[in-house]
């Protein structure tokens, strides 16, 4: 049936090295990606209270019906789920997501996803070539970095690069010119699991959750996939026409006259936006994931910084500039380090900021309170970055503590409470690095707190934070007024459709409307971005400067591509409803892991210290939309801190909106049954954790 799915999910049991085909049709109700992953996790992880390194942990690597198609900003994304080992004090069931070619090759190989169970008794890597799945000895690649590992696997799987390779024994077996898509951990990742990412190609990382460490705990080094098959599309002509329609609202259709509107617009943004972080004189090309229309990265003439973006550079660029008076090639080299070593870039950024503050206070160094012989005199140089990374990889010097994860590290140093209260250790919630600020851009913080990880979902961030902030920095009036923004957001945030959802005033951040904002955001992202896999750097498209009324593609675009591929008729609003169902399933898993609303508290600095740039390496003063005295405007909310009581009152509003027990934050039976999740309610009830 031509509906975008291959029809098969690969179930792998590492313990007995067996494989099994599951029928995708049984899980299509979840869309793909995260939804399918959570459903599979629920089914196959028998004890959800185990740690992420327990052999019983179930890891899913999932695609969507749009993977490997022409749908813009989706075809190359892959979603990973499983119990993580990064969050503190409990490694929640979590997710991560990466771009590149992996999901495309997996679909072309004939699989909608992979479910990994058990633990191998010997180091292995998984070799998927079309329908053939083999367990390969990983002894020789276990200690290699991610680049070396991929090159070794490429050479093993295909005879020659950049030529046609026949993948089967007969003339009529498939051929391809493509390299295998490999997802791998860094060298000996079991030693630094909470810091360990999974890397694919040069710059696609699944960082959050410590899935590199989870892989290593299963004696699994890598998964390689290469396919020669097809993704069957229900309406090819509609898909082509939709793609050409999208050109009109992106760089692709405006190369001769790009927009001049000041602001940050994900779908319309020109390619290679982080290229500016490279050293002067670097020559490069735009680079993108499969099927991308934006192409937000680059490859360079020096071959350094290839495919990296955002915090891959930002973990070190500020320190490079401080050491050298400007960005040098050090930044690209540092980006390559974390890609090669498979280290979490956000954790490394928070670590660098922390080390800098400790250094300034004389608390770290030879013979200091935190004794370390790292070359701190070279802070900001390649030498220091390499020494820091190596200390983690080998668990030597302070690397032995960092390898535990940032919160356990600080706890071991006896500094966790004080340093997350003063804010020099920027762990916003669950021991996870501060990304965007809970005190100002509250939907980001609330979503992370009620969830399980830094949400890293820029839907509102682009339009409610960056655009007005950039306008303020440049001293220009935003072309999209705060009132117009509130109207656009209201149009696109079914079922709530409330303009007040964009009120980030001191009152608005604790309002019923902000509960709707967070609720909608959880639903939208769980389905459209994490299950159908629309890329976070292109969607949601709330505001598009190529549209006369600035109203972006969101609402119209998501189902247009999905239905062209599947032949279905899922509406945008129905997608939001499926997202709600997925969100409730995830919530139930966290409840079984031990979640209670009393745990859902930000780190102390969010309540004690005013928000200010410098909390990360990339922030600017916060200017946000506010509704005050009957008027919309953009206003600086920098310096704001959260009120503990008001946050708790907001949580109550939010839980009631979700149909969860406000005293515990646990879903109620009627809420779950309304979404056909009665079996989930049964499990919660059996555990004594069903909302009253």
């Amino acid at each position: 049936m031509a509906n975008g799915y291959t029809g098969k999910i690969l179930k792998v049991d590492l313990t007995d090295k067996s494989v099994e085909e599951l029928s995708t049709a049984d899980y299509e109700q979840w869309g793909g990606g995260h939804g399918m992953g959570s459903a599979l996790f629920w089914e196959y992880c028998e004890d959800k209270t185990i740690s992420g390194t327990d052999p019983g942990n179930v890891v899913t690597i999932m695609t969507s019906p749009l993977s490997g198609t022409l749908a813009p900003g989706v075809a190359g994304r892959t979603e990973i789920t499983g119990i993580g080992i990064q969050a503190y004090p409990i490694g929640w069931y979590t997710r991560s997501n990466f771009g590149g070619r992996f999901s495309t090759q997996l679909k072309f190989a004939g699989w909608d996803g992979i479910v990994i169970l058990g633990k191998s008794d010997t180091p292995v890597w998984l070799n998927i070539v079309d329908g053939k799945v083999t367990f390969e000895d990983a002894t020789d690649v276990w200690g290699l970095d991610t680049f070396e590992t991929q090159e070794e696997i490429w050479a093993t799987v295909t005879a020659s690069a950049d030529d046609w390779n026949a993948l089967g024994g007969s003339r009529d077996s498939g051929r391809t010119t493509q390299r295998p898509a490999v997802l791998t951990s860094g060298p000996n990742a079991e030693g630094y699991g909470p810091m360990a990412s999974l890397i694919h190609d040069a710059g696609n990382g699944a960082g959050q959750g410590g899935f590199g460490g989870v892989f290593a705990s299963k004696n699994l080094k890598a998964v390689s996939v290469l396919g020669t098959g097809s993704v069957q599309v229900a309406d090819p002509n509609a898909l082509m026409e939709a793609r050409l329609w999208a050109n009109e609202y992106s760089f692709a259709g405006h190369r001769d006259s790009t927009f001049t509107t000041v602001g940050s617009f994900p779908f319309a943004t020109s390619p290679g936006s982080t290229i500016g972080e490279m050293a002067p004189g670097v020559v490069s090309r735009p680079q993108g994931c499969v099927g991308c229309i934006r192409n937000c990265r680059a490859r360079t003439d020096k071959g350094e910084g290839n495919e990296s973006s955002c915090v891959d550079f930002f973990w070190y660029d500020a320190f490079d500039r401080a050491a050298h008076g400007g960005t040098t090639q050090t930044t690209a080299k540092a980006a390559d380090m974390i890609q090669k070593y498979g280290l979490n870039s956000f954790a490394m950024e928070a670590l660098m900021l922390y080390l800098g503050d400790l250094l300034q206070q004389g608390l770290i160094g030879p013979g200091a309170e935190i004794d370390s012989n790292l070359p701190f005199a070279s802070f900001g140089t390649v030498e220091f970055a390499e020494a820091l990374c190596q200390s983690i990889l080998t668990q030597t010097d302070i690397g032995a503590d960092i390898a535990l994860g940032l919160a356990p590290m600080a706890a071991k140093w006896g500094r966790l409470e004080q340093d997350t209260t003063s804010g020099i250790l920027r762990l916003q919630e669950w021991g996870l690095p501060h990304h965007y600020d809970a005190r100002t851009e509250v939907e980001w913080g609330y979503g992370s707190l009620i969830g399980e990880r830094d949400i890293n979902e820029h839907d509102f961030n682009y339009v409610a934070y960056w655009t007005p902030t950039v306008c303020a920095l440049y001293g220009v009036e935003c072309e999209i007024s705060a009132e117009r923004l509130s109207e656009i957001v209201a149009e696109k945030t079914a079922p709530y459709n409330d303009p007040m959802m964009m009120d980030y005033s001191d009152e608005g951040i604790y309002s019923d409307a902000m509960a709707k904002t967070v609720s909608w955001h959880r639903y939208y992202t769980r389905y459209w971005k994490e299950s159908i896999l629309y890329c976070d750097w292109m969607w949601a498209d709330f505001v598009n400067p190529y549209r006369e009324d600035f109203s972006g593609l969101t609402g119209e675009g998501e189902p247009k591509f999905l239905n062209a591929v599947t032949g279905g008729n899922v509406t945008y609003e129905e997608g939001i409803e499926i997202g709600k169902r997925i969100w409730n399933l995830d919530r139930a898993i966290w409840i079984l892991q031990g979640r209670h609303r009393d745990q859902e508290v930000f780190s102390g600095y969010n309540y004690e210290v005013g928000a200010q740039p410098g909390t990360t390496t990339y922030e600017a003063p916060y200017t946000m939309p506010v509704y005050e005295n009957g008027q919309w405007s953009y206003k600086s909310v920098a310096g704001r801190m959260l009120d503990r009581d008001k946050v708790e009152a907001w949580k109550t509003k939010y839980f009631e909106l979700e149909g969860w027990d406000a005293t515990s934050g646990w879903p109620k039976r009627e809420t779950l049954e309304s979404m056909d999740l009665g079996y989930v309610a049964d499990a919660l009830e059996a555990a004594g954790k069903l909302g009253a």
Partner: protein
Amino acid sequence: MADIEKKEESSQSGYSRRQFLTGVGGIGVGAVLGGALLKSILLPEEVLAIPASEGYLLVDTRKCSGCTSCMLACALTHYGETNHSLARIQITQNPFGSFPNDINIDQCRQCPYPSCVDACPTGAMHADAKTGVRTVDEAKCIGCERCVNACPFTPSRVQWNPQEKHAQKCDLCVDTPFWDKEGGPDGVRACEAVCPMGAITFSSEIPMQTDGGYNVDLHEPIFDTLGFTGAGGVAGGH
């Protein structure tokens, strides 16, 4: 071989036929072709009267982002499904490579003297009578793959389609049953239409080309302002 007329040898040229075909067909070119549309040429052993293609895909690999949208669109419009292996244009790339050698766009050159056409024993591989586009009459293809092996480029621009069991190659979208748009030299090409970087365009004249590829600069001024100072330039296509 309906579209190829073979005549008796009459040339006094000092070139061997093989040397000529290799030279203008692709690898090891060294020389430059360009400008005029060549309708026929004398060869040492025989004269091939092969109509020139009325169009060529012109590519600038320095603008290519490696997204492979062109490959997906090619398979989608010809077969109704997305598939890298069925794409008649191939993007090969090394994520760890250095610009500009990290990416090749491997598209059919619509060679003036196509080795693939010459190698075909049945006339399945031919120049379309109307457009001159080198293409495959699938009904005539016997699957010998001589055309696949005869292509002087790596990877071969002629492919074996294992699903339908015939050779295939770029037809400039003359025949795209799964796309409503009119293709071919006078129409729209799927790969060109979807390329977000504008790295693929169309030319009705034989492009200037060297060993390194097409001598073409397709970059718009915006690429310089975005910091892609390497976009465009010379020897941009393979």
